[in-house]
Every structure is written in C-alpha cells, then in structure tokens.
C-alpha cells in the first residue's frame, strides 16, 4: 500500500501519538504501508523553506530510506522561490512538490501558480496541491485559513499537458460531483483522506476513472484507519482496490 498523504514535523496546535518520524514509520508499516509520500507541517508556516526542505529530505533518509518519499514545499510568494524548486529537484532529488496556496496567501489564478506548475512539469516533478488541512469550523481562533478555491484550476491545468497533479484533501472545497470537470482538464489524481459520505470512494469513481484515485491518510493529523476503512466501506472489487492502494501511485512515481 502506498500512502500519498502523510506529514512530518509538528502540527502547531496539537500533539499526536505518532508525530515522531520513527513512530509514524512504525505505525504505517504495521498497517501494511510500503511507501509514504511525505510533506512537512513546517512548510505551511516557516519562511525559511530551504531549511524546511533540507530537514524533510534528511528525515526521510534517516527514518525511511526507500520508504519515505519527500515532497518539498515551494511558496511562490517568497522571494527567489525558483531556487527552492531547483533545490528540491537537483539537490534533494525529490520526486515532487507539495503546495499550500491558502497557507501561503495566493489563489489559483495567480500567475506565479501557473508558472510554478509549468516549471515543475518541465522538470518532471509530481505536484501535490493541498486544498485543505482541517475543517474550517474547528480551526484555532487566531489561525483561520479558508480552503483553497479550486474554481480556476481546470483552466490553469488545461494549458499544461505534461503536468502530473495530485489533489490532496480536496473534498471540503471541491464537491465530488465537480471532480470530473477537473479530471478532464489534465493529468489529475485525487486522494481519499477527506472524502466523506458513506461508500464515498464508489461515488468518486462514478465521476473520475479509478485510475485517478490514490490512497492517502493525512497522517498523523488524521487517524490512519479512516482511509483504510474507506476501502472496506467502498464495496469495490479487489482489482480496483489494488489500483487505489498501490498501482496508481506506482505508475505515477515512475
């Protein structure tokens, strides 16, 4: 099983049983995960993104060589962000990037977003775009962050045929019924961490091909078992579940 949505470092508002990298890796392996794509909570809040990405690469190497795959943060609002992108690719050999527009203060119709996607696509990097981190009703009073508005997304990615884009935690701002519109615009995948309603995965694949659905847990912020049990609840046949658990992510990582 490949978990495409985990986070390292500390969430500032709460501690988790598994927020130390050794414990998180042990937990994921115990649940049958064979590879995990990791971003950094620090990437949402720190301005020294180069240091965040350096730590992310080192932590993945130290605690999960061949298991943890680092997805570095790039914030296109920061000066000289192009060099963060270059370092993720050239210095750290990362397979992809993780973007947080709502935490970094830009919208998807910002020209810097389109440029970032284009440069990532030219380098063959996977881009993970995180639309939410938590329920808007439960955020800290001093830290109210709206979800990313996905409306401009289809128009932006339609111009980038080489781009491979993964939407993480998409479904608090992107209704499942609108997923098809985004999926048709380009090479787009969706993780299941924030997919809700009973048998939600079955409803999602009525809108998008099962090849576009990835397993993602949003650990350690969410209980890992949530995503795991969504597979059970889906009632889907084993070949489709295998695609979601691992084959789709394997092909994407090639």
């Amino acid at each position, binding site marked *: 099983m490949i978990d495409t949505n985990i986070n390292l470092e500390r969430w500032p508002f*709460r501690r988790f049983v598994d927020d130390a990298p050794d414990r998180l890796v042990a937990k994921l392996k115990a649940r049958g995960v064979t590879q995990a794509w990791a971003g950094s909570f620090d990437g949402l809040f720190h301005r020294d993104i180069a240091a965040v990405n350096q730590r992310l690469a080192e932590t993945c190497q130290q605690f999960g060589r061949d298991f943890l795959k680092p997805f570095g943060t790039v914030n296109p609002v920061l000066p000289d962000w192009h060099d963060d992108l270059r370092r993720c690719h050239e210095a750290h050999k990362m397979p992809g990037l993780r973007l947080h527009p709502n935490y970094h203060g830009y919208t998807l119709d910002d020209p810097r977003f389109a440029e970032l996607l284009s440069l990532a696509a030219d380098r063959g990097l996977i881009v993970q775009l995180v639309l939410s981190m*938590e329920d808007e009703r*439960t955020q800290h*009073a001093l830290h109210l962050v709206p979800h990313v508005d996905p409306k401009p997304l289809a128009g932006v990615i339609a111009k980038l045929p080489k781009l491979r884009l993964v939407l993480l935690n998409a479904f608090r701002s992107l209704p499942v019924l609108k997923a098809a519109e985004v999926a048709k615009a380009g090479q787009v995948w969706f993780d299941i961490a924030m997919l809700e*309603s*009973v048998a939600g995965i079955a409803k999602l694949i009525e809108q998008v091909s099962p090849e576009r659905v990835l397993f993602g847990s949003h650990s350690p912020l*969410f209980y890992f*078992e949530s995503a795991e049990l*969504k597979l059970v609840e889906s009632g889907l046949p084993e070949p489709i579940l295998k695609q979601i658990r691992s084959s789709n992510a394997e092909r994407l990582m090639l």
Partner: protein
Amino acid sequence: MPQYRIWDLHCHLLGVAGRTPEEKMATLLEIADRHGIERLCLFFSSTWSKTPTPEELKTDNDVVMQAMSHWANRTHGFCYVSGEHVEFSLAEMDRCIKRGPMVGIKLWVAKRASERNLDAIIRKASELKAVIFQHTWFKQDGTQYPGESTPLDLVELARRHPQTHFICGHAGGQWEMGIRAIRALKNVSIELAGSDPTAGFTEMAVRELGPERIIYGSDSAGRSFASQLAKVFGADISEDAKRMIFSENLRRLIEAAQRAKK
C-alpha cells in the same frame, strides 16, 4: 480490524440510494454490514428543517418509523422534537416512544439547550427513560445557527436536570473544548460523530471523562462510517475502552428505554 460489537448512535438517510425510506434503510444497512455494525440509530431524514413546524416534525418522525419498519432488530429510532413546539413535541413523544417503537429524542438547532422551553421535554423524556441526544457545536467560522447549542448550553440544561442523562452530540465539534465543557457533569456523555477523524480525540476523551462517558456514532450518510469508526479503532486506548465506546455504553441506555416501555 479486531472484532467488536458496534452500535452506531447517529445515522440519517440523506443521500442514501433508494426510492423509499425502507429501501434507503436497506442500502445503509448493507454498507454498515461491510464493517460489521450491528445496530443503527436513525434520526430525522426527510425535511431537514432547522426550525421545524409541527407538521414537519411529524413527517420526519413518520419517515424514521417507516424506514425502521422492516428492520426492528437492527435499528432504533429517535423522535425529532423542538423547543419551539413544546406541547406538540410532548405529544410526539407519546406517539413515537411511549406507544411507538422509538427509544430516544433528538434535539437539533431550533432552540438552544440552555433555554427553559426545553424543561418540559426533558422531564417527559426522563419519565420515559428515553435517550436524550442534543446536537452541539462550537463553530469557529461564524456559521453557528441562532438556535444552535454549544456544549455550554447543554451544561446549563444538564445542571437543571441532574438525575437525567444527556448525550452531547458531536462533542461540540471542537472536541478539546467540548470535552472540557462537560467534564464536571457526570450526567453528560459525548458522542464522537460528525467531525474529521482528528487523531487524539478519543484518547483525550478517555483520559478526561473515562470510557463510560463516550459513545460511538457516525453521522452517516453525510459522513462515512469509516472516518468515524477510525476514531475508536485508531485510538491508543484499551480494548475494554473500545468495547464500551463501540456499543456497551449505548446499549445500556437503549435497553433502559426499552425496559420502560414494558
């Protein structure tokens, strides 16, 4: 996953496939079976009126009883009542609980729990030994409805009725606050349903309240069963605590309501 007896406190039929309430109920049970969930408690599933009229309360309760009709061994109904229509709510409790199949009441967002209009409804529920479920949220994004209770509203109500047991629905959403709000009142339990499966929720609840004051629920079909079951399956708590949360605590309340009918 390990096997437990699982009773789900909180289900609706919103968005469930089926032409009739009976068909929707069958669909929801089929999905619940994938997790081995034994029993589902069913709340209003028709009008979704936040300030229901008496006619809407009756319609919602009729739909719940219709949905349950073929599944008496798998479902328990909760009577939708409102502090805006006290006399009608009391009559509905007689119709649906005393003389009907239901075992509890659901209070949603028509009136805050702290308001004294609810006292007559609570006295009646207590007399019937009905399970009392009050929806609660602390919403941070400014979307609190005018009549929507926080756990602190429920605390006021529970203080006025110290011999009556209450369930604090959703644990207030912001569970770190909800758990603290009701901590001192031994006659209040929390349910886990209807919020993100945020790690640490159930561990804090067990630490601060004890497992005997926590009840599993999903808020399906808007929520998945999966994300809400994960709050118990994934929690770093004892097996005994999981058994209590998954079914024992709720069974105790429902069996008391059923005994009172005899």
